[in-house]
């Protein structure tokens, strides 16, 4: 005969296994949605940061409007880099 305590622990282990299965399914789905939301802001944020850096450097060196233009494009490049990286990360996860 199995003592009741042993049965309790085994029940808990079995239940936790089922719980994990459900959790990992839900996790996967929410991870997909999360990454979909992520890509948009990733692209925009870099452009904004690049433009702000360009603006600050412009007022430091008195080179209006050149640095802001250059850094706008650098920011766009950084945004694309970020999106590509995020997409790569997503593919690796799957």
């Amino acid at each position: 005969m199995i003592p009741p305590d042993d049965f309790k622990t085994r029940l808990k282990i079995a239940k936790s296994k089922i719980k994990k299965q459900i959790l990992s399914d839900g996790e996967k789905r929410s991870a997909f949605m999360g990454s979909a939301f992520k890509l948009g802001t990733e692209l925009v944020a870099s452009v904004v940061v690049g433009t702000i850096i360009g603006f600050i450097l412009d007022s430091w060196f008195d080179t209006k409007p050149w640095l802001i233009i250059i850094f706008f494009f650098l920011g766009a490049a950084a945004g694309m880099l970020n999106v590509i990286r995020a997409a790569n990360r997503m593919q690796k996860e799957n």
Partner: protein
Amino acid sequence: MATNPMQQFSVHKIGPEIKIAGIDLSFTNASLFMVISAASIALFLFLGTKEKRIIPDKIQLISEMLYSFVAKMISDTAGSKAKPYFPFIFSLFMFVLLCNMIGMLPYAFTVTSHIIVTLILALFIFIAVTVIGFMKHGFKYLSIFVPSGVPKVLLPLITVIEIISYLSRPVSLSVRLFANMMAGHTMLKVFGGFVISLGILGGWLPLGFSVALTGLEILVAFLQAYVFAILTCIYLNDALNLHH
């Protein structure tokens, strides 16, 4: 009744005005709801861990699930080296989650729909991760700006792009959370306004939309907390495991 959909975001003082060294530190409705979220997390986890039963009751089960959810997220994305940072990421996740969820209650104020709150959270993470990176690797941490296998001619350009991409982290982190929360709540209010203005004849369609949007908003509230926490883990991973 407030008809302006943006009025729900207005911050106003509660109680006396407190000024310390010229800085307005008065207690506002935003601070009230932050205190409510923090207090409810503490109370919930206290109740959840008070009795350590072998067969957990509901509240213990939920706290254990939250714990293992965050623990798994950290070990999956940042590896075992990130274990010491579990308390921080867990508190961060719970705080953002509770702020978002409490904001879904009627008449509640959504703290995370203000960019200053999310920006401070994101800047704190950004500075902490940078400090951790420098502490673990010294000046070798700067090598994350110099990817390997790039031709020498392109190196200055790539380095500048990498620096911009690194600096954009707190911006994208904070704007994502703030924009999602603000857009969702504004939309709910706009549809609510439609229900009132179309009256009993035409108001049923926007009412249905409102119900559907509320469900979506609860999903978004959870998702944004999750994304916020997982991105913190990813940034932490970059700082802890330097691989370039």
